[in-house]
């Protein structure tokens, strides 16, 4: 039989303790000290022998013991619906159990393990501001042997509401910090990506060249490179699978390997084979990179090229546009020891190449439709004799017009090169 509650003194004491806890909520931002204080106050003012707080783990759909004077954090895990606390968690309704062992829902397992004898239980859910379950607060054994009364239920609800707010707030702060860290790592990946690009492209009367990389927000791993080795210009465009800092670092490694390979390999096929050997070896992370690489002999216009899984470039001629015959071999990093076949062609004066990554052909508009290769070909036929820088600028503008404000799903990379007019 519940003891008579509600002498004025007791009421005042209870309200004071609530006030204290509310004040603490306002100034204490560390979750655990706050919860410990709530537990301690609740147990003492509501006259319970023991008090515990469980936090809800949604991915495991169970309650984990978070705070208790007697048991270690995490030492008790209760699935949703099991026992009194599991019931309260599932229904999000307070339960007042006057006699635990007389209640079919009570689970005596922990009593057996700890040697404690549960008599009365008062258990309330902890809810977020949206009403979602974040945990459970439990009082055990009314001091003096009685049961918890209705007044006590009200008080526990009040403590529970404060604890709920505290947990909620801590989760929001954690999420904000996480977002900040993610933002930070995006910036880092972006910086890595941009710092690796060549600062100047070799241009002059014999060669017009331009390139542009418009990164997507989460850094899609595109890159391009150009270097002059002897009387040949090595050029490459590529796309690393994956996003973020990991992909940016893989890209950095690829570029470094390319630069080394360009100085020692006979041709782009050998260069890609060497790069692939390094990238595929011990490739724990299953990343791969598509690359189209070629060399242009400035004097003869001979182009030698190799293609590791990349979309084939277009040939831009005064009389039209055609796709280069460059069937893709496997991307780099997939299988070790691949011999990349070579392709050969010649660029007469005023003829050029347009290289790109799939960020162009797979650009999406707000309805999710892809731009595709046809609009690209139509554009190129129209603009094929533009000065390289202008051509690229207009191409990027066309893609972005199609995207119509939809956030780019991938990096947009284009490179154009054209042999100068015949000597004279």
């Amino acid at each position, binding site marked *: 039989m519940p003891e008579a509650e509600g002498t004025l003194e007791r009421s005042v004491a209870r309200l004071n303790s609530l006030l204290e806890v509310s004040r603490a909520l306002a100034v204490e931002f560390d979750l655990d000290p706050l919860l410990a204080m709530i537990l301690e106050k609740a147990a003492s003012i509501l006259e319970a022998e023991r008090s515990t707080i469980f936090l809800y783990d949604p*991915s*495991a*759909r169970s309650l984990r013991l978070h705070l208790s004077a007697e048991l270690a954090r995490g030492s008790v895990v209760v699935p949703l619906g099991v026992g009194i606390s599991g019931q309260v968690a599932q229904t999000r309704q307070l339960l007042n159990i006057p006699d635990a062992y007389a209640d079919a829902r009570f689970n005596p397992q922990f009593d057996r393990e700890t040697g404690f004898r549960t008599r009365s239980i008062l258990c309330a859910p902890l809810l977020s501001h949206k009403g979602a379950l974040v945990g459970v607060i439990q009082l055990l054994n009314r001091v003096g042997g009685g049961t918890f009364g209705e007044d006590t239920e009200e008080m526990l609800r009040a403590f529970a509401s404060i604890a709920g707010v505290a947990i909620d707030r801590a989760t929001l702060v954690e999420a904000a910090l996480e977002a900040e860290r993610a933002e930070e790592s995006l910036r880092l990946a972006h910086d890595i990506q941009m710092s690796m690009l060549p600062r100047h492209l070799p241009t002059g009367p014999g060669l017009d060249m331009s390139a542009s990389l418009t990164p997507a927000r989460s850094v899609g791993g595109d890159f391009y490179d150009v270097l002059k080795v002897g009387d040949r210009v090595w050029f490459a465009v590529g796309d690393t*699978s994956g996003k973020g800092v990991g992909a940016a670092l893989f890209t950095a490694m690829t570029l470094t390997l390319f630069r080394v390979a360009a100085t020692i390999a006979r041709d782009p096929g050998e260069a890609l084979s060497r790069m692939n050997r390094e990238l*595929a070896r011990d*490739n*724990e*992370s*299953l990343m*791969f990179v598509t690359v189209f690489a070629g060399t242009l002999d400035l004097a003869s216009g001979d182009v030698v090229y190799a293609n590791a899984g990349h979309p084939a470039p277009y040939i831009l001629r005064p009389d039209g546009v055609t796709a280069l015959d460059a069937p893709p071999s*496997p*991307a780099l*990093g*997939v*299988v*070790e020891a691949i011999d990349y076949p070579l392709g050969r062609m010649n660029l007469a004066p005023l003829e050029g190449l347009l290289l790109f990554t799939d960020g162009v052909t797979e650009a999406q508009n707000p309805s999710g439709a892809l731009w595709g290769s046809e609009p690209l070909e139509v554009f190129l036929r129209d603009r094929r004799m533009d000065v390289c820088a202008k051509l690229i600028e207009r191409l990027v503008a066309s893609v972005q017009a199609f995207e119509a404000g939809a956030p780019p799903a991938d990096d947009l990379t284009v490179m154009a090169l054209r042999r100068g007019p015949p000597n004279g």
Partner: protein
Amino acid sequence: MAAETITAEASAAGVSGLAAAFDGFSRRHVLPARVIEASQVALDELLSNIVKAGVEPGNPAEIQVSFDFLDPVLEIVVSYNGAPFDPLARKDPDTRASLDDRAVGGLGIYLVKKLMDSVTYERVGGENRLRMTKRIDA
């Protein structure tokens, strides 16, 4: 509702049962041959990967596959229990396997990514889940 779900043991026999189930599903929905062929290979690669690497030794786990076709997108979801294992991100962690065997994981996953429009992994409620999609009109 065009969704179908099949559960099987994570073994070679179980996997061929799942492949047969996909055969039936794709015929019922009259999917184009190249979509069926591509999805069969992708599904087989993933299932083989899971059976080889994602299951605790001595504990034949379960694999559940669900197929759904919402014109024009085919969706295949593969769920399996056991320790967290993302075949898309990490090679076969079994260091006892020969280098060649381990490397197969790389080519297999590359193939899956090329055959399907999208493939993603997530860990949900103590389970591993792979989701693949392919449009029939691409």
